[in-house]
């Protein structure tokens, strides 16, 4: 912060140049061209200066200006006008309303700017301001709810990955993630999480690398959804493209530079509706079988050799199905056996803990500070931006820092020859990301395996005071080794991960306008990064997976390093020629030469650390296992051409063609071609009706081809650590394929866009169908083949959908505007066929805990969640209960229980602007989709949740003993095999009835729908009048909030969006983070 203050003062002292000239006073009235009424609140600013005023209630203004100045008139919803004074003293202005799409220019594939009306396919733009007001540590998350058909799913992990799919899933096994392109440079969005992390075993979510982009640098985002829009990007663009245009320096006469400062601070707290609410009546244990009656939920042990048994908590259990609390009962808790504990040797009342795991979370604080200097003249422009993000998470000892420096500039070397360059350096470091998945994750303890008599703050005190792993989960009263769970503070402060990334994204570009109709462009771009991820486990921890081959170890250190570089060389020749008045031809041909290189090593200690607290490979207790190394190089040569015809501004016709040669395919099949054709018809040009402002019909067809993942052609063997000096090798688990063909996506799209009533009402409707065929997939095969999977061109997937965006301006009156922007999308995905007559493919790379799987199943939407179910009696349709009182379960686990695909998604953005104040509220909606909750599967079984404590049909506590005295237990709702009502009473005092042990997976499948108040902001722009005598050109102050309120959801105690990672394994939750509500303030000052 200090740096900024100094810089700020310097800039103030420097002062700013303003044009000198003869000063005259100008007056006038501003009126609405449509109804002739006066327009109050219109900003009137002297161009290139900070001098300005605003019109009064009768639309009048008065301002003193140099006689040769220009005046800029601007108002929300109106076209801005730039009027030279030319010595006049009275200037009356007629202001016209903005008519959306007619004039809009959007950025399309390869960075080509096009009039939106001329496009035969759907492109949606998101303005940079929309991403910047309410900041997110990952700009991708800020897209959520803002664009139709773009499905954003953030995991909730600190700096975690975000799943971005556009118009559904196209690939069975490969990436379904959109391609990110920044100023024409495709950037790597890899997620380095391993299979174990993705499949929810254990590990950290290191995020995906597109999050490196600084939202503050973004001027706008274009979302290219269909294949026609993306065909020129070639193979990687079949999942849609998110095109980012960054801010550039601009030429402002009379002003050398402009400076913008932005400062944002937000606070985050957990949303308690996404974290467990615990039952309050029972403590540690799995059932009534530890000690002597009547306290069978507690152990009876003579701990002090006085000949009398004491009551001891079964501290080695990680469940809360134990003894009912009773404050008069004095028991020995775990902490009675640590000499360092203030309760050492003391018996204490048997009561619920004062501080439950909710108190484990801290307030997250995030600062974003940026400075942005830009300027230019007739020959050159530049922009320099610096942003620092400094963030702590809700988990103790977690933080993330990111620095972005970006510099771009252009220079006209000679007439018609412009050189431009951009460099973006990013440095990110994180420490203490949260663990994810089932094992070795504090949150899976809090959600699945915990003793509710344990006070979290006591755990904190014990760790803080001793620095030792004093866990609540001792092996036994006389053995202090933690058995299943460490002290959670020990985990956060000792077993933390750390990671960092240094990245450079940049380009140099040459533009040459050879003649009025012919120009050339050449660009060389690079995206390169180094990343290092280190994991630690301190000596004295509970064993958990760590390192090469992920064995369970009680201490260790691992490091994963990756060096990645991608270069692109693009060359294009452009033709733009009019043939008479009615026909304009735009065409280009070009080439794209892409090379990527990925070099990574994963290595770890073996068998633990030899000296505690030294996290170095050389500190390995046993000789290290061979590291896992990968070197992957990919080359793609693309050649493309495009022809666009504009006939009278009425009909537009586009055709493109591209040929790719991809190194990842077998030589005989490595070249492939694909075309696209699209047309746009502006029928409103033919209709002269005042109610119709704009009308366009569009139609397109496109194909996109795609190569294979690296290394899927030739077979190799997998080496293992040698045994007594003898090499061990194994046949690889995946059989490669020397006959692979390119994958193809074929897409057809139609659309209608219309604006009415001077664009106060408008909609844009798209209908599309996409079929992807010859999907390259490592098809899971029967292990009896000797392999787990085999690369095949396997099958076909179809996505059909409808997207609608609707813009309304219900109110537009003097000084007040209310805009509603609404988007809605429904995508229907279906797996049409699989190779070789297969009916099903498992998507999750390794088995998911709980026995469910995520699948591509013929006839079902991609991502079918399969597992076991109840067996339903035929005549009554009700679940069958066996004679032992528990449900009968299906013998197989291939019952389709749900899908990861939502039915539809939508967003509603309301903007209210009154004079200088604007209020924005974004509501984000997902309807449908399913989640299997491992948290509930186990957590109900361990008795953590209030659902496991209730009054039964006999009027007694269900957890009472199922006998005449207790009157506990319950009768499951169902029928016996002959269809009669079940009457068998089962025990309600142990872990079996409610959780995993006797219930099918289907009992823990939840609807993933939600309605969220995603963003809320209130912005006040300081009136130009107040600023007119200061060097400040504009200033605004915003109160911002994100994820403030989950208005509706069906999943208990968790956020339906939360998950392990980005990728295809979705719809399964274990130990997920609670959602974080963020609120704060943002200040923007421009000089």
């Amino acid at each position, binding site marked *: 912060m200090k740096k900024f203050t100094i810089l700020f003062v310097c800039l103030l002292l420097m002062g700013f140049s303003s044009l000198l000239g003869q000063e005259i006073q100008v007056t006038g009235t501003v009126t609405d061209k449509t109804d002739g009424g006066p327009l109050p609140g219109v900003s009137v600013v002297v161009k290139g200066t900070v001098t300005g005023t605003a019109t009064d209630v009768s639309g009048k203004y008065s301002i003193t200006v140099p006689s040769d100045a220009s005046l800029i008139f601007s108002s929300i919803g109106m076209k801005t006008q730039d009027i030279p004074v030319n010595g006049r003293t009275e200037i009356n202005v007629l202001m016209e309303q903005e008519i959306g799409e007619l004039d809009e220019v959007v950025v399309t594939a390869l960075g080509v700017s096009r009039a939106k009306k001329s496009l035969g396919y759907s492109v949606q733009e998101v303005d940079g301001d929309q991403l910047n007001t309410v900041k997110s540590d990952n700009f991708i998350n800020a897209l959520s709810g803002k664009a139709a058909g773009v499905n954003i799913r953030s995991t909730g992990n600190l700096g975690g990955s975000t799943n971005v799919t556009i118009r559904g899933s196209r690939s069975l096994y490969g990436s379904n993630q959109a391609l990110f392109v920044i100023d024409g440079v495709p950037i790597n969005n890899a997620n380095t999480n391993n299979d174990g992390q993705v499949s929810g075993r254990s590990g950290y979510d290191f995020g995906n690398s597109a999050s490196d982009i600084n939202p503050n640098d973004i001027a706008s985002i274009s979302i290219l959804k269909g294949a026609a829009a993306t065909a020129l990007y070639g193979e990687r663009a079949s999942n849609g493209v998110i095109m980012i245009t960054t801010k550039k320096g601009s030429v402002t006469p009379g002003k050398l530079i402009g400076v913008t400062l932005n400062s944002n601070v937000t606070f985050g707290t957990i949303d308690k509706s996404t974290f467990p609410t615990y039952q309050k009546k029972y403590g540690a244990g799995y059932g009534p079988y530890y000690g002597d009656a009547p306290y069978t939920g507690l152990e009876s042990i003579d701990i002090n050799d006085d000949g009398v048994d004491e009551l001891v908590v079964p501290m*080695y259990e990680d469940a809360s199905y134990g003894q009912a609390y009773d404050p008069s009962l004095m028991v020995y808790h775990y902490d009675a056996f640590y000499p360092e504990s203030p309760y050492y040797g003391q018996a204490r009342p048997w009561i619920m803990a004062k501080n439950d795991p909710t108190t484990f979370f801290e307030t997250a604080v995030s600062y974003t500070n940026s400075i942005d200097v830009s300027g230019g003249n007739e020959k050159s422009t530049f922009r320099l931006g610096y942003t620092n993000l400094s963030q702590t998470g809700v988990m103790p000892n977690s933080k993330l820092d990111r620095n972005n420096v970006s510099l771009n500039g252009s220079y006209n070397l000679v007439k018609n020859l412009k050189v431009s360059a951009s460099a973006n350096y990013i440095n990110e470091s994180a420490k203490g990301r949260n663990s994810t998945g089932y094992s070795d994750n504090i949150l899976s303890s809090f959600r699945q395996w915990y003793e509710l008599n344990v006070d979290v703050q006591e755990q904190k005190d014990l760790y803080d005071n001793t620095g030792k792993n004093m866990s609540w989960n001792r092996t036994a009263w006389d053995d202090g080794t933690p058995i299943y769970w460490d002290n959670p503070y020990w985990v956060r402060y000792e077993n933390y991960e750390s990671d960092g990334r240094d990245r450079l994204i940049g380009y140099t570009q040459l533009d040459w306008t050879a003649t009025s109709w012919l120009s050339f462009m050449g660009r060389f771009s690079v995206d390169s990064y180094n990343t290092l991820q280190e994991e630690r486990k301190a000596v004295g921890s509970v064993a958990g997976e760590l390192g090469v081959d992920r064995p369970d170890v009680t201490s260790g250190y691992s490091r994963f390093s990756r060096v990645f570089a991608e270069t692109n060389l693009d060359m294009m020749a452009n033709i733009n020629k009019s043939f008479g008045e009615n026909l304009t031809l735009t065409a280009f041909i070009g080439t794209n030469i892409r090379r990527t290189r990925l070099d990574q090593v994963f290595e770890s200690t073996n068998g633990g650390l030899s000296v505690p607290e030294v996290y170095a490979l050389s500190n390995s207790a046993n000789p290290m296992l061979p590291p896992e190394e990968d070197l992957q190089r990919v080359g793609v040569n693309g050649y493309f051409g495009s022809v666009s015809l504009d006939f009278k501004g009425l009909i537009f016709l586009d055709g493109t063609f591209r040929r790719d040669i991809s190194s990842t395919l077998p030589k005989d099949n490595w070249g492939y071609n694909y075309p696209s054709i699209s047309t746009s018809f502006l029928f409103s040009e033919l209709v002269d009706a005042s109610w119709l402002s704009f009308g366009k019909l569009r139609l397109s067809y496109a194909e996109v081809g795609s190569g294979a993942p690296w290394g899927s052609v030739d077979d*190799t063997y997998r080496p293992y650590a040698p045994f007594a000096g003898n090499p061990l090798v194994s046949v690889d688990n995946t059989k490669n394929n020397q006959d692979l063909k390119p994958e193809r996506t074929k897409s057809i799209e139609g659309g209608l866009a219309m604006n009415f009533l001077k664009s106060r009402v408008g909609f844009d409707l798209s209908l599309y169908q996409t079929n992807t065929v010859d999907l390259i997939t490592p098809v899971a095969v029967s292990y009896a083949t000797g392999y787990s999977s085999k690369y095949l061109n396997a099958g076909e997937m179809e996505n059909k959908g409808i997207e609608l965006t609707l813009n309304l301006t219900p109110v537009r009156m003097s000084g007040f505007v209310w805009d509603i922007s609404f988007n809605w999308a429904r995508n229907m995905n279906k797996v049409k066929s699989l190779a070789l007559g297969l009916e099903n493919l498992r998507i999750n790379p390794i088995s998911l805990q709980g026995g469910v799987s995520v699948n591509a199943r013929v006839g079902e939407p991609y991502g079918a969640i399969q597992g076991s179910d109840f067996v339903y009696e035929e005549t009554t349709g009700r679940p069958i209960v066996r004679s032992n009182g528990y449900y009968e379960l299906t013998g197989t686990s291939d019952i389709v229980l749900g899908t990861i695909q939502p039915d539809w998604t939508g967003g509603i953005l309301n903007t209210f602007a009154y004079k200088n104040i604007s209020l924005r509220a974004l509501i984000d909606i997902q309807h449908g989709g399913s989640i299997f909750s491992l948290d509930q599967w186990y957590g109900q079984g361990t008795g953590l949740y209030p659902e496991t404590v209730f009054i039964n049909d006999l009027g007694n506590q269900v957890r009472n003993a199922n006998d005449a005295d207790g009157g506990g237990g319950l009768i499951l709702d169902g029928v016996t095999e002959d269809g009669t009502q079940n009457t068998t009473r089962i025990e309600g005092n142990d872990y079996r009835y409610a959780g995993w042990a006797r219930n099918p997976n289907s009992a823990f499948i939840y609807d993933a729908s939600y309605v969220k108040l995603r963003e809320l902001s209130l912005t006040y722009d300081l009136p130009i009048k107040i600023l007119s005598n200061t060097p400040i050109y504009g200033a605004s102050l915003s109160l911002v909030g994100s994820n403030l309120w989950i208005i509706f959801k069906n999943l208990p105690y968790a956020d339906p969006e939360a998950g392990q990672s980005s990728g295809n394994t979705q719809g399964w939750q274990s130990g997920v983070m609670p959602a974080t509500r963020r609120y704060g303030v943002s200040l923007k000052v421009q000089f």
Partner: protein
Amino acid sequence: MKNKYIIILVLTTLLASCTKNFEDFNTDKKRPADVTGEALFSNAIKNLADQLTTPNVNLNIFNLWAQYWTETTYTDEANYDIVNRTIADNTYRAFYRDILEDLQKASVLIALEEATVINTQAAIDNKLRVIDMIQAYCYQILVDVFGDVPYTEALDIENISPVYDDAATIYSNLITRVKADVSGMTVDDGTNLGSADFIYDGDAEAWVKFGNTLLVKLGITLSDVNPSLAQTTVEDAYAGAFESGEDNANFPYLGSSPNTNQIYAELVLTGRNDFVGANTLVDMMNGLSDPRLPSYFTTIDGEYIGGDYGESSPYSQYSHVADHIKDPTFPGFLLTYDQLLFYLAEGAARGWSVGGSASELYTDAITASFDLWNAGSAENYISSAGVAWDAANWKSLIGVQSWIAFYVRGLEGYTQWRRFDVPTFNIAPSIETESDIPVRFTYPINEQTLNKTNRQNAADAIGGDELTTHIFWDVN
């Protein structure tokens, strides 16, 4: 116009030159494309030993199902839940993908070896026979666990829907195969496997004994269902089988991971306390005052106490696995002399000619077990009540004693229980009667989805894909 030509020239150059390295790009520089068959063989043997010794509940739960051990807190596997952790899938994966496929590929590569003065054609052929015997050993396990399994069409990636073969036919075929391997071995030529053979260091003669012992194991398993084949197989093979504990096929684990015994990896390295002795075994041994108890278990206050099978059993209250078993170098038992003697005792009791009387062989078997476990003299034990030979009661005696002797070899113990139905197993809480105790694994979930028709046909053929469907040899 000149500029146009420059552009065209540049484009043409790029077109021509840029794919030159493409094949190289797609070549893996970090993993070998060519290896020796021996390295694959070594890996397969290690994977086999690991799979047999591991008590990891995701991989091998037979020490539980044999009721040698029970689980402390998480009792799902002792209660016969194999779905939650996809244990059947993992078993297929371990045997077919991680063992049999490597053996198969090793055979292919070794068959391509060129004969030299040192690596003679006979030695090459011997290697192939050793590999074939290990494959047979694995297939017997697969049949004993599942019943019908893919066999004739297995291990062929060109056929991703392999049919299941009839289990009895597989057995006969395995016997034929191993007989051919044994008789074809030219002992004088060795195997040239050398140190790549962790079991016998390339000793062809030892492998002949192994093959004969395996034939006895295959044959004896058929004794209730195909007595004639069982008898001829055992009678033909016994004389060439193991002659002492020295001949045991033991995997010599090393002191540091990942080459330690998997019992050590799971019981010591993980720091978990998931298993205690089950009351089924502990009570039986207590009743017989079995001197092997200290070799098998630890004591609690000087006593051996087993947890009630399938019930929650606090770790601190029950006997644990004996410490020497948890040593990293505790060997992995693939096939042992005491095992052979129990099989032969059974053959003799059935009236077959196997080189000794049932009583002698029974005595030798128990003695060999005591030797294996360093439990001192077996003499008093063998003559004690409940152990002493009684020809009228041979099934029960051999059944119980072999079950006790096969401790930590869960699958072999479980198989003996399935064949003899002794001792009486405890009924875990998840089931109701003795007839509910599982006698096989259900087929993997993967097979339900990936090899649907063939799995369904197999399920029909064996009488339903249930945990309670008997393996074809389990007729009594």
